[in-house]
């Protein structure tokens, strides 16, 4: 049984990262057609020949092989967590085998990067081994990272408070893992853990990491995803109704990979629920396994019977985001008689605070846009805007999701923010209007010239 360790807690003189670096260099020497090569492994997550990070990757495997094994990463789906767990397991096996071949230790395990660790002042910075030296002699370095440090608000762990695994914020409350989908390269509502911190860390680092079609070329990708994988177990350990899906469409769906011998291999979600059973088995440092139940025996879960949310407001046109703040007025554009109002959201007769979710639907765009911060009813005169902060959206993978392909429909992405607490707070303010909600969307950093975002519809759903 391997233990995946916290990269910031590796003892002085530990060789885990040194061997990882050597293995990366070695894997980069293998041709792209070799399933155990660095390029092939990264292309399984995503690939696009026109992106500069992929220059020099040719010759490539056949189109049939690419359709089967490449561009497989699951996003906006309840397969997000199990697919990445499978992907990491085989990658770890390949790296470990490479290290053995290079004369290294037999028990190499992938470390994880816990950027949310508030007890460590350096936690939000990429571990130094990945940035120093900052040239090609360092296997762990890659050109083009926009930032080495993630701002604190993009690594918070509110997702762990989400009880249901499955949910889309429309037919059911938001889910920790994502909505029920088939094979989903993009398209469904991003799950709570996927949106924050997962997507945020990708886009905050930027460069290769900012786009799913290049992300896995950056060696830090794998430590980031080990942490996301760890958080799945942390969430299960919190119990209180936190259980995995129990539908066969989740448990038995098959995904394709390659093992360290370069042979085709498969995994289902059911086979990776318990980390100790995945290949040679692993646990995470400081995270117990095997405690609470993974899932219930009932075919239908309570979520199947819960009342769906209902839409209470929506924009009546698309919203294009630019380099300045964009404000969308929800409910304003309808004729006065037909105005969709937020009274349902704010009905004070309801004893419990209503669940309110802000949706960004059919989001299409180009390039790698920055993270955008979202504020509700932000006062014109500035002042303390933090008390109007609703959350952030990162649009990780938006360009790919905008183009129909073998793996996605091209209808764009779907993000959702739980704004219940903020709306409940705002509605007691004297400025609150039942007929109108102003949604301000601001880029967190300068927007690249070739990046753009268009949101098909912004909507509010409530209980």
């Amino acid at each position, binding site marked *: 049984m391997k233990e995946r360790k916290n990269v910031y807690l590796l003892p002085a003189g530990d060789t885990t990262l040194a061997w990882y670096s050597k293995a990366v260099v070695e894997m980069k020497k293998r041709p792209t057609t070799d399933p155990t090569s660095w390029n092939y492994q990264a292309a399984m997550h995503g690939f696009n020949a026109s992106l500069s990070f992929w220059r020099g990757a040719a010759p490539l495997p056949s189109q049939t092989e690419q359709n089967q094994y490449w561009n497989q990463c699951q996003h906006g789906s309840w397969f997000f967590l199990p697919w990445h767990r499978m992907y990491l397991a085989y990658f770890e096996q390949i790296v470990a085998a490479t290290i053995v071949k290079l004369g290294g230790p037999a028990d190499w395990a992938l470390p994880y990067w816990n950027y949310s660790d508030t007890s460590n002042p350096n936690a939000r910075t990429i571990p130094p081994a990945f940035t120093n030296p900052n040239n090609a002699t360092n296997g762990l370095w890659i050109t083009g990272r926009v930032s080495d440090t993630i701002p604190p608000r993009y690594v918070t762990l509110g997702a762990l408070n989400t009880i249901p695994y499955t949910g889309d914020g429309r037919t059911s409350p938001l889910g920790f893992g994502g909505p029920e989908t088939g094979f989903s390269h993009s398209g469904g509502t991003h799950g709570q853990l996927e949106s924050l911190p997962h997507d945020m860390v990708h886009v905050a680092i930027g460069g290769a990491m900012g786009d799913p079609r290049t992300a896995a070329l950056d060696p830090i990708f794998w430590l980031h995803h080990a942490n996301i994988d760890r958080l799945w177990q942390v969430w299960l350990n919190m119990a209180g109704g936190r259980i995995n899906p129990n539908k066969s469409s989740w448990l038995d769906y*098959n995904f394709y990979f390659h093992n360290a011998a370069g042979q085709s291999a498969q995994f289902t979600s059911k086979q990776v629920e318990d980390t100790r059973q995945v290949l040679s088995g692993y646990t995470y440092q400081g995270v117990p396994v095997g405690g609470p139940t993974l899932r219930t025996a009932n075919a239908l879960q309570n979520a199947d019977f819960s009342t769906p949310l209902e*839409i209470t407001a929506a924009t009546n046109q698309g919203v294009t985001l630019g380099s300045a703040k964009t404000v969308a007025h929800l409910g304003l554009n309808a004729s006065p008689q037909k105005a969709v109002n937020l009274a349902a959201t704010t009905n004070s007769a309801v004893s419990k605070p209503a669940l309110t979710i802000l949706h960004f639907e*059919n989001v299409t765009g180009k390039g790698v846009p920055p993270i955008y911060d979202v504020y509700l009813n932000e006062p014109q005169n500035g002042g303390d805007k933090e008390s109007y902060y609703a959350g952030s959206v990162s649009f990780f993978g938006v360009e790919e999701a905008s183009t129909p392909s073998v793996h996605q429909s*091209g209808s764009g992405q779907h993000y959702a923010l739980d704004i219940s607490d903020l709306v409940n707070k705002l509605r007691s303010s004297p400025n609150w209007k039942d007929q109108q909600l102003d949604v301000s969307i601001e880029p967190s950093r300068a927007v690249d010239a070739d990046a753009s975002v268009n949101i098909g519809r912004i909507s509010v759903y409530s209980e």
Partner: protein
Amino acid sequence: MSADAGVAANSNSFSFPAEKMRMLIIKHPEWWAWFLSLFAWVLIVGNLFTNAHQTGHLSMITYCTPRGIVKVLGHSPFELHAVWKEEPVSSRILTTIRTGLLPWMIMVVAMMFPLLNEPIKHVAFSVKRKDMDLGIGGFLIGYIITWTAVGVMFLLLSFFLNLIIGDLSHFASALITASGFLLAAVFIWHPGRPIKMTKCGQTAPIRIQGWHLFLDSLFYGVKMGFNCFNTCWVPMAALVLAHHNIPLMFIVTAVIIHDRYLLPHTSKFTGYAWMVVAATLFIIGIL
């Protein structure tokens, strides 16, 4: 947020099976389309029993009667009247469309509506609950509009083919239909096919304000109708050649539902299914 209050409210409603039932219905608005599909099947099969011996009429009965599973291909209805060929071409075209379109649309409702779970849910949950049926209705009307245009096209095509080639022997028609399914099989291996399949999962923003709601749903229906046509036109055309043979229709429906919901989009299973259909038709044609 008070999570406790939410849990309490939920578990309360769980104790009533009727409430559970109501939630399931609200959460599965696609029952609407399945119900219409079932109704269409009842119409089709009903005609089979009540009119089993009446062939030769220019009606839906003619189109939808299998005339025995062994004799897979009958003559097209316009061949059956002695006087038919004396009529001017324009009136024959009109008659073909007038008599052929209704059975075609019933076939589309029977076969295609069960494929629409995802887009129907998309529309239904994009709008307020009171507008759900309006949205779904608009979507299905849009979807039908596309398939009506396709139906007119198919009918004209089969009319002119008949005009040019004349009446075919049973063997020749069986061969043509079998080739249609063979072509459908080949298309499963076409590199462009998975892209077409993913487009069946497309969504579009629906405005919830006034008549925008209906129009957006309708246009979304038109678009999805086109996407479905793009993936399904070959087996559908082959079915028209087989004069809507009912057992065959049923098999084709089962294959495409299985393909839509139970297979990964890169699977080639459906290709083998079409090959089996083609081979069976070919053998029946020889016999």
